[in-house]
C-alpha cells in the first residue's frame, strides 16, 4: 500500500555564488512496511529530498503526497509529530535528557500521561534492544550504537508510520551498523513502518527492499 509519493518534485536554492538545483523532477513512491535506500554521491541531493519528505522544506515544484493527500496542504508540524520521524547520522539526542526522557519527550508532547509515557518509552527502548540500565543514562554515557537506537526509539515514539533516516550508520562501527540496520529492517517488516534511509554504504543498501540512486538531483530506481 502506497504511503508516500513524490511527483515531479524539484527544489532549488541560492547559494553564495549561484543557484543550485538540488532536486530535479523527482518522481517516486514508497509503500507501507517497506525498507528503502536512497544512495548517491555527496551533493547529489539525497538529504534535501529527505527534508522535503519530512516536510521540513517545501518543494519548488511538484507535489509530495501522503496517502494521497498533498503534504503542502497538511499541517507539517503535526505530520512530523504524528506520522513521520527523522533519524540522523549524528543521533542528535537531547544531551541533557536521559535515554528514557529523550523517548518520552514526543510522547508527553502528544499529551500522553506521564506514567503511560514512561511505560511506553521503556517498551520502545526495549524494542530497539537496549537494556533497562541504559534508560537512565545520558547520551554522553552511551556508545554510538546505543545513541542511534535511542534516536530510533524516539523517532518511533514521535512518528506513526514513516521513519526517515539520514545516514543512520555513518558514525557506527560495523557491529553496531549491522544491529541498527537489522532494527530498521525489523521496524519495516514486522512493525509495518515505512523506512527510508539515505546511505553511502552498499552493505546497508543491500539490506533494503528497494534502492533509489540520486545523481545531480535526479533520481532513478536501481532495484
Amino acid at each position, binding site marked *: 500500500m502506497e504511503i508516500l509519493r513524490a511527483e515531479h518534485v524539484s527544489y532549488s536554492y541560492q547559494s553564495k555564488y549561484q543557484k*543550485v538545483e*538540488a532536486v530535479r523532477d523527482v518522481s517516486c513512491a514508497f509503500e507501507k512496511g517497506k525498507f528503502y535506500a536512497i544512495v548517491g554521491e*555527496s*551533493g*547529489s*541531493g539525497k*538529504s*534535501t529530498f*529527505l*527534508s522535503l519528505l*519530512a516536510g*521540513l*522544506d517545501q518543494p519548488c515544484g511538484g507535489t509530495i503526497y501522503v496517502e494521497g493527500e498533498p503534504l503542502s496542504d497538511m499541517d507539517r*508540524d*503535526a*505530520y*512530523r*509529530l*504524528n506520522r513521520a*520521524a*527523522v533519524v*540522523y*547520522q*549524528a543521533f*542528535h*539526542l*537531547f544531551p*541533557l*535528557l536521559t535515554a528514557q*526522557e529523550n523517548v518520552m*519527550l*514526543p510522547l*508527553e*508532547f502528544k499529551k500522553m500521561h506521564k506514567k503511560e509515557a514512561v511505560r511506553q518509552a521503556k517498551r520502545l527502548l526495549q524494542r530497539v534492544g537496549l537494556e533497562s540500565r541504559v534508560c537512565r543514562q545520558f547520551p554522553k554515557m552511551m556508545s554510538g550504537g546505543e545513541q542511534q537506537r535511542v534516536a530510533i526509539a*524516539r523517532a518511533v515514539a*514521535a512518528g506513526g508510520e514513516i521513519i526517515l533516516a*539520514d545516514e543512520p550508520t555513518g558514525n557506527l562501527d560495523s557491529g553496531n551498523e549491522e544491529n541498527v540496520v537489522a532494527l530498521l529492517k525489523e521496524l519495516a517488516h514486522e512493525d509495518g513502518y515505512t523506512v527510508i534511509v539515505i546511505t553511502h554504504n552498499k552493505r546497508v543498501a543491500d539490506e533494503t527492499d528497494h534502492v533509489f540512486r540520486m545523481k545531480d538531483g535526479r533520481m532513478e530506481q536501481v532495484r
Partner: protein
Amino acid sequence: MLLFKNSMRQLFRMKGRAVLFLLLLIFASGLCSIGRGFLLMNRAKMEAYEDSFMTIGTAEQKADQVKERMIWDAEDKNYHIFNTAVYDSYVPLSVLDFEGADYLAGPERRCFYGSYMPEYEMYDMGMCLSEIVEGSPVEDAVPDHPIAFQISRVLGGQGGIREGHVISFCDHYNPEPEKLYADKTYVMSLTYSPGHEEQKEFEGDTPSEYIPFTVLGSTQVDAEGNKVPDEVDDDHFCDEVTEGFYESPMGRRWLNIVGTWDNLRHTFPVTGTNDIYLMMAFYNGNAFISQGREFTEEEYARGDRVCLVSETFAQREGLALGDELPLALQYANYGRTAGRAFAVNTAAAFTLINARGEVYPIFEEGDYKIVGMYGGQAGLRDEYGLAYNEIIIPSRSVKNSDADNILESGPMTGCNTSFCIANGTIDEYMEKWSRLRIPNVEITFYDGGYSELEANINNMKYIARLLLVMGVSMVFMVLAYFSWLFILKQKERTAVERCLGFRKMHSFVSLFSGIFLLILVGSACGSLAGSYLSGEIGGKIGKENYYDTTFGNSMGTDVGGVEETFEPEEPLKAAAECALAIVAAGTVIAAAEIYVNLKKEPMKLLAGRTE
C-alpha cells in the same frame, strides 16, 4: 507546562552554569540597582536643595583711577594724603543685560528713597546730624586751632550744643581759614570731633572740638549722575548773620536745611527691589521674614503697593499686618544704601535740599499695605545691611520718575547691584560675561555653598553612574554570554524539536521559559538587595550630612544650616523598576537569539547541506 518543565529540567542539568548565571546576574543587578538608587537619590537631593539655595551675583564698578587728595590737618599743621577713587563715568546697569544672561531675578540697581511720614517717629535713626548754630568767637581769632566760640542760638541738629555754651571751634581741614570777629554773629553747621592734643592741658583727657560740616551746597545729581550746578560751594559752612539775613536766598537756604533736619526724624528709608533675596541682608539671613509673608511674584510684577517693615518699628508704632503706611517719597539716593547712610555714628553726608536750595518735593505717594515683617539685625555700620526702620517695597510700585529728586549717585557696588541666576550656572554665566570684555566691572557670586555641595553630589553622581554603567554592562555581558550558552549554543536542540513536530512557538517556550525564570529570579534578588543597600548607605550618608550655610543663604528663619529633607525612594518600587528593566533586556536578548535559532532550517543544521 510540559515545555516549561522540560526547559527547567534541561537548564538545571547544567547546574554549575545555571548557578553561576544566577549569581552573576544577582551581582550585576545589585550593581545596577545601587548605581540607579544612588543616582536617583543624589538627583533628589539636588532637587531638594534647589529650593534651599539661591545663587546671586553682585556687580561692582572698579574705579578708573585713584587720586591722591591732600587734606590739611590743623593739629599736625601738615597735609595728610588720602586716596580717592575716581570714576570717569558710571557704568550703566544695562551692561548686565547681555545675550545669554539667563536671570531668574534682576539685575537690579537699588537706591533708597526717603519717605516723609510726619505721624511716625524715626527712632534710632543712627545717622548723626550736624549742629546748626549761631554764635561768635569769644575774641577775634583765626580758627586754625581750637578757639573759644560762644553759642547764642541753636537752630537745629543733634542737640549736642545748647545756647550759651562755649565750644572749641577749629576749621580743622582748611589750611587758610578766614578770621572770625567777636563782634559778628555767624551761622554755622558743625559736627563733633575729638580735640587736639594741646587741649588736654585745659580740658582733660578727652578734649573735644567742633569742626565745620558742609551741608549747604546741594549734592543733587541728574538721572545720568552729573552734579546739578549749584551757586553755593560744596565746602560752604558758615555765613555772617546780619539784619534780614534769613529773608535772603542764602538765609532761606539755611532755614530750609534746618527744616530738613527736623523732617529727617520723620523720614524713613525705603528700598525698592524685585526680590528681597537680592538684598544681601535677606540673602545671608541677617534679616528674615518673622511675620506675614514675602511679596508674591505677581506683586513684584504688577508693582503692587505692599511693603515689609521691621518688626521693632511695627511694635513701636502699633502697626499690624494689613495696616497701611502712607509713603511719600521725597528723594532717591543712588550713592549709598540705607544701611550705610543711616548707620550708627555716621554723619549725614548729603544735603536734603536741591540745587535751588529748596526741600525736595514729594514725587510719589501712596498707601502701602504691610504684608510682612522682618526681624534680624539693622543699623550696623554695614552697607550690605539694613537701616533701622527700613521699609521694603516692590521696585515697580514706584511709578513716577525720581529724576529731579536724586540727591546722590555712585557706581554699581556689591551692595546695590545684584541679580539671581539658576544654581550651578556660575561658570556658564562667567564665560558669557568674560566675552563682553568689560574690565572695570567685577562680578562676585554668592551661592551659600551650593557649588561645593553640587561638586560633592556630582562626585557621588559620578560614582553612581560608574556603578550603574558597570552594572548595566555586566548585566548585558552576563545576559549575552549565558543567552549564547543557553540559547544560541542550543540550535541543535531547537532543530531536533522542530523535527519532532514542535511548532516554532513550542520551541520558543522550550528555550525561553527556563532562562526567563533565571533572569526573573536573578534580577529580582539583585535589584532588591541593591535597592535596600543603596537605601541603607544613603540613609547613613544623609545622617552625616549637614550643610553649613552660616555664610550662605538660608532663605528663611532657619538660619545656620540645611538638612536633607528629600524623600528616599520606596525600596520595593525601586527594585521592581530595576528588575523590570533587566527582565525586559533579557527578554529582548533571549527572544532575538531564539529567533536566530528558529530561522535556521532544521535539516540544514542537523544533516548539513553539503550540496
